[in-house]
């Protein structure tokens, strides 16, 4: 191998340079250079020469090389979102062949709104899954936030009468506990949001759709503080903690809403979240901001990397990717601004609100995971907890915080799915909600073993599940078939995940 010969070559000049044992100031001066900075190699050759003859010179590749490298990675077990994207295409083809109504504009828009609740919960779950943990309570926890939101709306802010005195004080006490636990582990955002929930609840702030949504989010954060503390500090396995809480929160929802009861969300703003559409002008504005922003960010970053001589993808590939996003975005925007109403009396058109909602969460989540120190630490803890601890990362804090994020984001999911049906019943967030959300993340390519996954996996996986449910529904398949097919798809995704790990482990070292 070439490394041996190259290594031997350096050995020669390094030996010369060792010389007599120096301890004086001069050596100290070189020391600083050698410890850092580009002048490191001046004692051997010019820096550029050193970097050039140093093996790492593949900062840029041709498109062909990049594609070959990608194929090699996939063969090595790094599938990423590829299986889910392929599955998405297959499902689209199959269902549009089998059902006339599948590829209609009305159905597509409906499908988006149907899948969004689960998808958003899945986005929060990605953070937990990245640590190799699981949050089985995210579904019923989202149900709790939905029921508090509905109760607050229906009782015009008077939760004391809505819940009954005992339950109300227990609820407030739980919020206080959440604040304290978050402060203990210094998860500031969790403490802040839980405190806001406490204020809204105690002050009896009158009903207002925006306050309701904020309340749901904050109650979600408070729930996450409690889960996170039990997992991260007390050290109970997340599977057990969240299984217990899954049952407990299901009971809490029932208590808040009452057996057989339903709380209607009679409010235009809350109803519009999942059922409203942007105007045509706003739809196009969204397209310009989203696609333009994406293009600007990706291209600026790409050319700045090229300029600085950093590892970068081939320009052609980047351009193709940006072009594809812009064209697809434009096409989707155009189609969604057409009238999709089946009756002649009303017109329904415009991009549904759920699209910008998911996009915003996608952008924020991706930014946090890819660009911030916090996100890097999440991957590190998920990859090797002990290495992260030795690197000085506060592992306990990171582990608690992901549960806060998961439950808070699940609350946002709850707002969307409650808005879709226009009411909250005792089953809110129960049943298959959580399993579908976990399924969405895993199908999209997030590993159950931790350390691998991205926010967009949740969106892709969520789309796969939404299409399966919607398509089978259109084909008049009974619920049994829908469940079985969904289960099999999840099994398939988990197998792909396990297989990819096996392949990666077997890859040559």
């Amino acid at each position, binding site marked *: 191998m*070439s490394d*041996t010969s190259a*290594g031997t070559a350096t050995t020669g000049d390094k030996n010369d340079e060792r010389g007599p044992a120096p*301890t004086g100031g001069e050596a100290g001066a070189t020391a600083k250079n050698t410890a850092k900075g580009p002048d490191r190699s001046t004692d051997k050759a010019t820096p550029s020469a050193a970097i050039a003859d140093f093996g790492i010179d593949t900062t840029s590749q041709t498109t062909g090389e990049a594609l070959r490298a990608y194929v090699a990675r996939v063969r090595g077990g790094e599938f990423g979102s590829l299986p889910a994207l392929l599955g998405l295409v297959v499902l689209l083809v199959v269902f549009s062949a089998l059902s006339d109504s599948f590829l209609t504009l009305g159905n597509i828009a409906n499908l988006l709104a149907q899948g969004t609740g689960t998808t958003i919960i899945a986005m929060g779950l990605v953070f937990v899954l990245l640590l190799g943990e699981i949050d089985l309570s995210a579904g019923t926890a989202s149900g709790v936030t939905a029921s508090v939101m509905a109760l607050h709306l229906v009782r015009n802010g008077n939760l004391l009468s809505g819940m009954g005195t005992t339950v109300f004080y227990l609820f407030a006490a739980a919020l206080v506990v959440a604040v304290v636990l978050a402060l203990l582990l210094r998860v500031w955002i969790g403490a802040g949001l839980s405190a806001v929930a406490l204020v809204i609840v105690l002050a009896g702030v009158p009903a207002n759709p925006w306050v309701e949504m904020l309340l749901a989010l904050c109650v979600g954060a408070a729930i996450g503080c409690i889960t996170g503390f039990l997992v991260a500090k007390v050290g109970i396995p997340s599977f057990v903690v969240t299984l217990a809480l899954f049952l407990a929160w299901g009971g809490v929802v029932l208590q808040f809403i009452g057996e057989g009861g339903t709380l209607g969300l009679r409010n235009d703003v809350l109803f519009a979240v999942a059922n409203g559409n942007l105007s045509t002008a706003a739809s196009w504005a969204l397209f310009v901001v989203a696609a333009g922003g994406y293009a600007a960010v990706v291209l600026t970053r790409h050319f700045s990397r090229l300029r600085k001589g950093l*590892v970068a993808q081939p320009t052609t590939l980047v351009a193709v990717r940006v072009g594809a996003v812009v064209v697809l975005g434009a096409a989707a925007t155009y189609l969604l601004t057409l009238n999709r109403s089946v009756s002649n009396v009303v017109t329904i058109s415009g991009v549904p609100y759920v699209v910008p909602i998911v996009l915003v969460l996608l952008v924020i989540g991706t930014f946090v995971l890819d660009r911030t*120190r916090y996100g890097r630490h999440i991957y590190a803890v998920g990859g090797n907890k002990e290495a992260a601890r030795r690197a000085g990362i506060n592992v306990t804090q990171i582990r608690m915080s992901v549960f806060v994020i998961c439950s808070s984001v699940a609350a946002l999911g709850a707002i969307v799915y409650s808005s879709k049906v226009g009411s909250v019943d005792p089953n809110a967030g129960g049943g298959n909600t959580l399993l579908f959300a976990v399924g969405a993340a895993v199908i999209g390519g997030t590993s159950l073993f931790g350390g691998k996954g991205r926010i967009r996996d949740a969106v892709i996986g969520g789309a796969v599940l939404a299409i399966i449910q919607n398509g089978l529904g259109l084909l008049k398949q009974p619920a049994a078939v829908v469940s079985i097919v969904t289960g099999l798809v999840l099994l398939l995704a988990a197998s792909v995940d396990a297989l990819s790990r096996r392949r990666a482990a077997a890859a040559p070292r």
Partner: protein
Amino acid sequence: MSEPILELRGINKSFGAVHVLHDVDFTVRAGEVTALVGDNGAGKSTLVKCIAGIHPTDSGEVLFDGRQVSIHGPKDAADLGIEVVYQDLALCDNLDIVQNMFLGRERGKAGVLDEADMEQAARRTLASLSVRTVKSVRTPVAALSGGQRQTVAIAKAVLWDSKVVLLDEPTAALGVAQTRQVLDLVRRLAEQGLGVVLISHNMNDVFEVADRIACLYLGRMAAELPTKDVSHSQVVELITAGRSGDLGIARPDMAAV
């Protein structure tokens, strides 16, 4: 003899009922390589982890630059300028080389990472270590060979402006040429005025680079001597029996309890 940069006095450490370190005194001098030797399970890695703040010590004191310090966690050690290459490397497989090298100390403003800066610094450090076999600094560590990972772990430790570098069997997975490079690096670090601790089972390496040799025997410091004052066979005897002539602990047979 140069100034002690790091001094341990009477360090004790137990894991539950197992008393691993007994009243260990250990000195690291600036500008010198101190080899820490001892049999498997003697407590070398444990001692290093105590210095690095991974394990809390039960008793004993730590002096850094003459001042008494308390190291409560890896951050404290890093802030003092103590860097460690762990025996198990402590790398995150799912992160790439750059991300691993800056783990826990990422550069950037207000929590937002400055990838360009980190990538350039990582490349310079690796270039200075003459790592020729890695294709890209953006390769995930999972895809590296054992020796390459070891090199990354070493690069991670020398990236910082540190005062003391502890290397726990850094050449264990390395080929002939890479071992040579690491030994040269160890020497160079000492020449730059750093205190270097090298743990190794290879006596040739130890005698080649070390200025002083410290020998642990069943968790006790058997001897701490200048390399020139001892012979190969004496060190081997110290390692295996805790005693060699008038060197070593008085009653090694009692130490086993």
